């Protein structure tokens, strides 16, 4: 997993609630057996005027000029701001892969869907939940200010605005620890192999039908 400490970056405002994983990365791109290359199809149906299929050269496609990520002022954004229930829908990890591959490091929204939220941590993409009023305020500030940037610090669990306003965010201690250290969770779990085996033995005795 990628380590994450802090990020100081341009913010792109996606003013929508319930952004679902089908919108983040449409299913035709899920046919890939690779883990990379999804960034060019992030928000494909909103981002391009033509219909995208795997294998198309995205430089030859027609971008939708009205879509936020196609506006020059948000080009190179590393932080995405959205409304409530971001990432609802499927469990596809392709959604966080696409966001990260595009260049986002942080997603800020009032709330996230559980599986999406969880998946982000597995790859070192940081989802931050701030209360709805704060998010609303950030939307207004971004609109009013060209080149609006936020500073995110994971160690302090803070988001700082250009004017110096600071917002704290919550994160589980275990997740924070894993992100800061870029831990390989599988390796970590396998260090407990003896515990898993001991559990398995006891469990097999109690519910032998599960092991036939």
């Amino acid at each position, binding site marked *: 997993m990628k380590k994450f400490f802090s990020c100081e970056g341009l913010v792109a405002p996606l003013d929508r609630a319930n952004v679902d994983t089908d*919108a983040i990365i449409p299913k035709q791109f899920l046919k890939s057996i690779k883990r990379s290359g999804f960034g060019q199809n992030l928000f494909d149906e909103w981002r391009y005027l033509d219909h995208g299929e795997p294998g198309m050269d995205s430089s030859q496609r027609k971008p939708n000029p009205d879509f936020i990520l196609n506006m020059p002022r948000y080009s190179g954004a590393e932080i995405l701001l959205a409304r409530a229930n971001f990432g*609802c829908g499927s469990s596809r990890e392709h959604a966080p892969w696409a966001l990260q591959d595009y260049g986002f490091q942080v997603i800020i929204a009032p709330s996230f869907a559980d599986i999406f939220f969880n998946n982000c941590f597995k790859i070192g993409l940081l989802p931050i939940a701030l209360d709805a009023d704060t998010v609303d305020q950030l939307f207004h500030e971004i609109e009013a200010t060209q080149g609006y940037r936020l500073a995110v610090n994971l160690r302090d669990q803070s988001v700082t605005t250009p004017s110096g306003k600071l917002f704290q965010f919550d994160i589980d201690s275990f997740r924070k620890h894993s992100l800061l250290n870029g831990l390989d969770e599988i390796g970590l779990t396998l260090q407990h192999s003896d515990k898993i085996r001991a559990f398995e033995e006891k469990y097999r005795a109690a519910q032998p039908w599960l092991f036939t």
Partner: protein
Amino acid sequence: MQTLYDKLWQSHVVYEESDNQGKQDGTALLYIDRHLVHEVTSPQAFEGLKLAGRRPWRRNSILAVADHNVPTTGRSHGISDPISRVQVETLDQNCEELDITEFRMNDIRQGIVHVIGPEQGATLPGMTVVCGDSHTSTHGAFGCLAFGIGTSEVEHVLATQCLLTKKAKAMQIVVEGELGHGVTAKDIALAIVGEIGTAGGTGYAVEFAGSAIRALSMEGRMTLCNMAIEAGARAGMIAVDDTTIEYIRGRPFAPVGDLWEKAIAYWRTLKSDEGARFDRVVTLAAAQIKPQVTWGTSPEMVTTIDGKVPDPSRIDDIVKRHDMEHALKYMGLAPNTPISEIRPDKIFIGSCTNSRIEDLRAAAKVVRGRHIAANIKLAMVVPGSGLVKQQAEQEGLDKIFLDAGFEWREPGCSMCLAMNDDRLAPGERCASTSNRNFEGRQGPGGRTHLVSPAMAAAAAVAGHFVDVREIN
């Protein structure tokens, strides 16, 4: 006093994580009993496993099937889309290499992963069941803890048989009383999503309870738990009772003899204790639930068959109004249009929500002796598995559908998410028994209205949405 969720959780905790100060935040290593695998979310996990030189911890816990990409016609020629074909072949290869049980495309047991698990008895009460698919919540109908995971977690479970996860809060959704004639589990599910919203269950594991739930068949319970995720809850579950046990008896993966007796004695304990505490309780009266139809691009955008498309100008909340306007524009609907005036172009009966035998019977009952209306361009039935299809054919349901002008297809996810050739054209409107009406879900620009199988069948016959209670 424990909830069902407490019991399922506790019986699978290998150990609890703590930080360097020894503080616990509720993250635990949870043992996984059943790992269901399909072609879309597994290739990168198998690749990661191999790159790290690891092997599956317990390959017998894994059951694999290709369902998302498979064609629903002309299977004898294989898969024509080369990219889909590679994905399905990759699953075949991985399973062969690692000696994992897989039902291949032309095996009669092949079907949608959430249909075949229960059908085979591979889903059993008391289990933890995971799959790289959000509708894994379906299996909670059997008194299991079942939830969807991402690909990194698929790899984690393959390698360690465990998952690092945090306990959720507990919600109980109680549906008391008797459902009206023609009202089904799907209508309960949609009514619940409409009531609590698509984020209402976020952070919760939901237990469905009450007399209306106990009265449901296993098929109905699966439909309901399937859609728990549409209310934001990763897991939905229902206590074990005789209905559960009778459904499992005699299935291929179910225990037999002494083990069966031992198992059912344990399974009967899988219910919430009297007086167990839930963090949130929601109550619905079954008698008040009417047939539901979604009008928008999120499952919470739902109303009843006698309702109207809502009017955004009456909504005060700006974000909500904006969302509603956007949805109506996408759906090509004017505010205040009666739902019964909406005319679908296509009908889709299928998906892990509603493709089981009971669903097909309910739809067949409506179309028997009738024909699809002239404005319906395509009506299709996609059974959830080869075995469901076989059963339906034995009952003559295929004839009823074919005579009525429906197409009778091979099992798979099909137009639920349109990863194969079954999809809507831009602007086309569909009455669908699936679970998601997101933009583009059934094909780019496609417009989805979620309904029960009986309601989809009724719309096919009438050419517009119609109250199924007035048909039969």
